[in-house]
């Protein structure tokens, strides 16, 4: 394929990089400042952020709304739990490796079916397929523990170099937090590269105008499939990282309302922005935790927030902030 010469308007985003380094530094220093409970909560948020980031490659960049991303999250989580139960593996790195393979395989299978469709058909099909996994995890109780789920003990990190024998809370809020943080940053970096690569641009072209993209010579179905698989693997990694935090995996994370939660995060943060899902996932995590603590009717409360968001703030938190900043700048220059 001939590369078309484009005017190089995008310089290396130094400003962006500065913000990212600042954010990483803040995240890295937080365990020294905030309570252990808060650190673990933040770790949950970061894990969900990886999932939301992966999900957004489909929704934000390819224009496909998946209502079945619980499948890959669950595959990640159950891959780890199965390795604990049947292979007695303890190494987190092996977990991650197995998860990448497992979610890759599942995503390719599902993606092959799903990417033939778009819009609501795509959503319903992803939902239906994810429910196949849910019903299997739910019904094969002698393999998966059914609704009791599977327990996952604390893993060893980096072959036992760090962490290990400490108290579980201390382990999760320090060694494991940094483990999650490093992987989170790596995922952000990889995703950034992907969406800014020619491949990422092609996805956006498909999203904006499928017919035109086809005329330019983009193989739409293949590109969508690759995006689907990448998205699934990201979400799978999130699932694998989530299990040791939670200590338990149940079919709930395969059930389709959990997919809805991932969608919620992206809408909350704003799926038109790269950083939207990250912000959305972390905020949603706090929102849910405190809503659950505050009221029995947390679900209704979250529902109200979602409806309100979709009606009034379709660009999410990040979109709104961007708008405010732009307005402030205009006022300053005027």
């Amino acid at each position, binding site marked *: 394929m001939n590369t078309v010469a484009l005017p190089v308007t995008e310089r290396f985003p130094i400003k962006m990089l500065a913000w990212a380094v600042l954010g990483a530094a803040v995240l890295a220093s937080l365990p020294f400042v905030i309570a252990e409970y808060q650190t673990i909560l933040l770790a949950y948020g970061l894990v969900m952020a990886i999932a939301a980031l992966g999900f957004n490659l489909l*929704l934000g960049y390819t224009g496909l*709304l998946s*209502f079945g991303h619980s499948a890959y999250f669950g595959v990640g989580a159950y891959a780890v739990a199965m390795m604990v139960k049947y292979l007695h593996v303890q190494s987190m790195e092996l977990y991650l490796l197995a998860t990448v393979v497992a979610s890759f395989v599942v995503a390719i299978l599902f993606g092959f*079916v799903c990417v*033939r*469709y778009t*819009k*609501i*058909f795509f*959503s*319903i*099909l992803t*939902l*239906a*397929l994810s*429910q*196949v996994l849910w*019903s*299997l995890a*739910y*019904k*094969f109780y002698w393999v998966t523990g059914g609704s009791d789920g599977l327990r996952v003990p604390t893993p060893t990190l980096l072959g036992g170099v760090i962490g290990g024998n400490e108290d579980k809370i201390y382990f999760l809020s320090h060694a494991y937090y940094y483990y999650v943080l490093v992987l989170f940053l790596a995922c952000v970096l990889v995703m950034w590269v992907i969406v800014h690569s020619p491949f990422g641009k092609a996805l956006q072209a498909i999203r904006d105008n499928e017919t035109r993209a086809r005329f330019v010579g983009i193989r739409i179905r293949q590109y969508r499939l690759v995006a689907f698989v990448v998205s699934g693997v990201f979400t799978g990694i999130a699932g694998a990282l989530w299990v040791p935090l939670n200590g338990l995996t149940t079919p709930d994370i395969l059930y*389709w*309302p959990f997919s*809805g939660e991932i*969608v*919620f995060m992206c*809408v909350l943060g704003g799926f038109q922005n790269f950083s939207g899902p990250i912000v959305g996932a972390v905020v949603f995590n706090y929102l849910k935790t405190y809503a659950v603590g505050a009221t*029995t*009717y*947390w*679900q*209704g*409360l*979250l*529902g*109200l*927030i*979602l*409806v309100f968001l*979709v*009606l009034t703030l*379709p660009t999410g938190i990040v979109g709104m902030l961007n708008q405010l900043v732009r307005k402030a700048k205009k006022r300053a220059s005027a």
Partner: protein
Amino acid sequence: MRIVNLAHGNLYALGAFVTASLVGKWLAGTRTLILYLLVPAGAFAAAAVGALLEPTLLRPFYRRAEEYQLLVTFGLLMILEDLMRLIWGPYPLSASTLFSELGSITLGDAIYPTYNLLVIATGAVAALFLWAFVYRTRFGLLLRATAQDMRRAAALGVNVNRVYVQAFTIGCFMAGLGGAIVVPSQSAVLGMGVDALVLAFIVVVIGGLGSLEGALIGALIVGVFREIGITVFPEIELAVLYLIAAIVLLVRPAGLFGRAT
């Protein structure tokens, strides 16, 4: 009408809860015949809620991408689920007197609950009624015209907004009726809506969106396969249904009876 309502299952649950609570409350000293007349109350309640929801929550989204509809109805699902928890509490409600009152009949070797015959009859009547409504009345004509091309229908003088409200209300009525009719043989529990929705999705996907006869056939396929699954291999009972749906979508994207879109 091209509305995908993720909260549809909750209207089904609403019908079940309304009927169950009415039957439960009015049970003392009332003749059972009157109790049977109470069954449709759940359907009317669901219809009323539907008539309220469409203009307020769904209408703003027809002009936007279809995905937003999924999002807003997912929010609605969460809200309705908790509203029902708020009103009826977390415990299951039962209206089993209606079920046991009728007893059972013997067909050859099999014992069959009489109430289920009533359910079958109601289902058949409801299906017939709906079919006649959509294909044999003036309103049905307007409905189909609007579904086909909303803008053109509006230009020809159809009050599109009203058609949408009515169609949505009827849809909710049917959901409520389903819940109301099923509650005497099972009971109303929280979460029944979410389960029912996924089943309904499968039915519609198999039968084809926008096709009444398709939905009917789809429902029969799902029902039969589910029962076979439960007797033969209970572990994959649900998985089989989802797989059927996926296969149908692969072979005939528009469903068995769907028109190509």
